């Protein structure tokens, strides 16, 4: 399939920029790392590199276009053997609804962009609105609910704002969350509405302010602690595990810790090994913690509200790449989702793909490719990693007999390893093939684009694994 080149961001908070110049023309061969265009904002200019190898098939945003939103497809790169005809097919792809659409969904979600290109391919909006959970036939969104389009970033902010309006004991703290409104602008507008007593800028002290949050929670407040990224939370992991997760038990049930630790987890793009680690399996190892990792704005909103109301400590793993992506979110006064329930993001009978967070991006694209090869993949979006919705995975695998888990983190002791073990416990007789894992490679994250791409799971690897378990 042709691969879109997206309008990049100069900073995590950039929302739009100008396409200053194209350095390659349609039909030019490009290799990973080639500079193909220049973009600019009022602050800086930046070169756009191709992340993929192929031919520059089509330029979607003309040189000189101003105010191009971040993540807008600006060009399409054709892979080996593809010709321009593939562009038409690709352009049609986003219009194809995902298999499980919300009942009564009114607005077909449009991509985030209003670019001059005709029907640009977007990797942002191919997911369905939240539908029935795997374990329950009850829809999470009442039929006929109006859907709004909003980014993951906005949905998270709205969840916090709604809960802060509802409960005066809820407050948010972290580095740059107040005056600067968040390093990734997730706390935008909160200081203005709630004031400095409830939106608190901390010094750079991950261990310190995580502990401060724990103490406030032990004493009865409901803190939301933002980590600029979970990579920095390794400094705070002692407080999260030893202080937050264990205290209820150690105190013989006297003292619990209602706190949310949230922030982006996992790899972003080109930020190297120390800023690109996936902590999904780390936190999901810990009894006493709840671990949530949503892939859509609707799930992010509904689950963050649930997390803030939870009497237990919650680790809420967001994803920097998903922050700017838009999704349909139900327009409801109080949209709260149940913690611990997976979602069937796409129904199918041939193979189960289990994913969460940004892993869902690979899963949804792979399912499209598999569909064109005649394989109907069922996608389970876990949404919560602890408690893990084993019932939903088992129910799906009993139907399909095959399972592939996609995980950006490393394989050893990973979530995929745990799922494989649980399937052996509970669905061994239903498995027609070994459970396969498509994971981050067993190396620290490299910096260079081509190496980073190889280190992460890919749609191609996922398609190959799904075909392999189907013996195709």
């Amino acid at each position, binding site marked *: 399939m042709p691969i879109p080149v997206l309008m990049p961001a100069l900073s995590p908070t950039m929302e739009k920029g100008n396409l200053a110049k194209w350095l390659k023309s349609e039909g030019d061969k490009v290799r990973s790392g080639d500079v193909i265009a220049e973009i600019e904002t009022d602050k800086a200019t930046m070169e756009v590199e191709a992340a993929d190898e192929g031919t520059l098939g089509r330029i979607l945003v003309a040189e000189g276009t101003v105010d191009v939103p971040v993540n807008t497809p600006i060009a399409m790169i054709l892979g080996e053997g593809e010709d321009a005809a593939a562009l038409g097919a690709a352009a049609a792809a986003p219009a194809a609804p995902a298999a499980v659409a919300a009942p009564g969904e009114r607005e077909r979600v449009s991509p985030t962009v209003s670019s001059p290109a005709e029907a640009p391919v977007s990797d942002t909006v191919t997911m369905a609105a939240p539908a029935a959970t795997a374990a329950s036939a009850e829809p999470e969104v009442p039929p006929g609910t109006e859907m709004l389009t909003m980014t993951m970033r906005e949905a998270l902010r709205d969840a916090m704002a709604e809960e802060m309006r509802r409960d005066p004991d809820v*407050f948010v703290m972290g580095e740059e969350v107040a005056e600067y409104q968040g390093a990734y602008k997730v706390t935008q507008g909160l200081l203005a509405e709630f004031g400095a007593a409830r939106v608190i800028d901390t010094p750079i002290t991950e261990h310190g302010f995580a502990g401060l949050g724990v103490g406030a*929670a*032990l004493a009865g407040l409901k803190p939301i602690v933002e980590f600029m990224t979970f990579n920095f939370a390794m400094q705070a992991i002692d407080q999260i595990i030893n202080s937050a997760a264990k205290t209820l038990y*150690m105190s013989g049930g006297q003292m619990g810790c209602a706190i949310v630790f949230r922030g982006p987890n996992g790899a972003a793009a080109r930020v190297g090994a120390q800023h690109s680690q996936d902590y999904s399996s780390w936190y999901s190892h810990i*009894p006493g913690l709840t671990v949530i990792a949503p892939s859509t704005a609707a799930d992010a909103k509904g689950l963050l509200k649930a997390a803030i109301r939870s009497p237990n400590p919650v680790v809420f793993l967001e994803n920097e790449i998903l922050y700017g992506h838009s999704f349909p979110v139900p327009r409801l006064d109080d949209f709260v989702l149940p913690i611990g329930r997976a979602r069937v993001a796409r129904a199918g009978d041939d193979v189960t793909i289990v994913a969460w967070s940004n892993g869902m991006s690979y899963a949804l694209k792979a399912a499209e490719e598999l569909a064109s090869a005649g394989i109907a993949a069922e996608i389970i979006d876990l949404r919560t990693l602890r408690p893990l919705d084993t019932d939903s995975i088992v129910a799906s695998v009993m139907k399909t007999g095959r399972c592939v888990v996609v995980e950006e983190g490393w394989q050893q002791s990973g979530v995929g390893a745990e799922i494989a073990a649980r399937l052996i416990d509970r669905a061994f007789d239903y498995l027609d093939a070994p459970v396969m894992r498509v994971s981050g490679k067993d190396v620290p994250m490299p910096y260079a684009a081509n190496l980073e791409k190889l280190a992460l799971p890919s749609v191609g690897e996922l398609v190959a694994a799904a075909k392999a378990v189907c013996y195709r």
Partner: protein
Amino acid sequence: MAKKKNRAPTTALANAGPNDDIGEETRRRLYEVQVIIREAEQRAFDLFLQNLVKGTSHLSLGQEAIAAGFAVAMRPSDLSFCTYRGHAHTLARGVPIEKVLGELMQRDNGLMRGKGGSMHLTSVEHGVMGSYAIIGAHLPIACGAALRAQYKGADDVSVCFFGDGTTNIGAFHEALNFAAVWKLPVVFVCENNLYMEYTPIGEVTAVAHPAADRASAYGLERIVIDGNDADAVYRVAQTAFARARAGEGPSLIECLTYRHSGHSRADPAKYRPEGELERWKERDPIKIYRERLIQFGFEETAIAAIEANVRRMVEDATATCKAAAPPAVEILFSDVYADGGWAWRN
């Protein structure tokens, strides 16, 4: 009970001060709390030697005046945070001896029914908000509880006890900084017993007074007191609490003291120079305070009655705990999540 009140001190006792700023009843309580800690901890050590207390425990023998002085100055709504050397601070807040010994002896009547042990003593109803066995972790936590008071407009104070070794870990500095920046109602109490586990604190610290000499870095007053004199501790606690309740922010107090026993368990503390322990035993806080009471007119019989009563409490608690059942096995799986259970539930 002593009847003579307001009798001026007649000897040059260090930090004695005028009688009427503390008063007879408070002095009586300061002594009783110190004796409770001394007797209960000596019993805990005996039970350890009898193999009835397992694992590890860290005693405050010789440091009782600090726990007593602060606890007696606290209001019931004030919150204590302590380290794994926390028996003293737990007992000082009024937690029954049998609850503490029961926990150490792994009995169902223990404070946490055997789920926490010596290093995690917690009694929320007495304001004992946990004992933390990771050095430094509870300094930010105490600040968080203080933030709650500030946030709610309450005037309770969080009091955080720690040893000299804690002053070299990052959390100490992180917590002091934001406590000062936000003027949190928290009082940091460093019990400088001269040893970081088995190493003299001076050998691993850049300054002579590990806590007090860092105070100026956070805009705080340098405070060093005699931690073996319960009156001195009580007075400094009152001053610090008043400052915290008035919204003037944190205090950092270094209390000089000495650990009569080893760091933990049966550590014989052979690393201490000859004569050091004996010299400090001359300044045993309980010995000092017993003399103080006599100075202020307490009758010997009244003092002996306090001591006899505490010994009887310890005997009764020991008997109760020896007769108590071990924790019910069903509780292995309770209290992992807030619904009281093990598996997470919506």
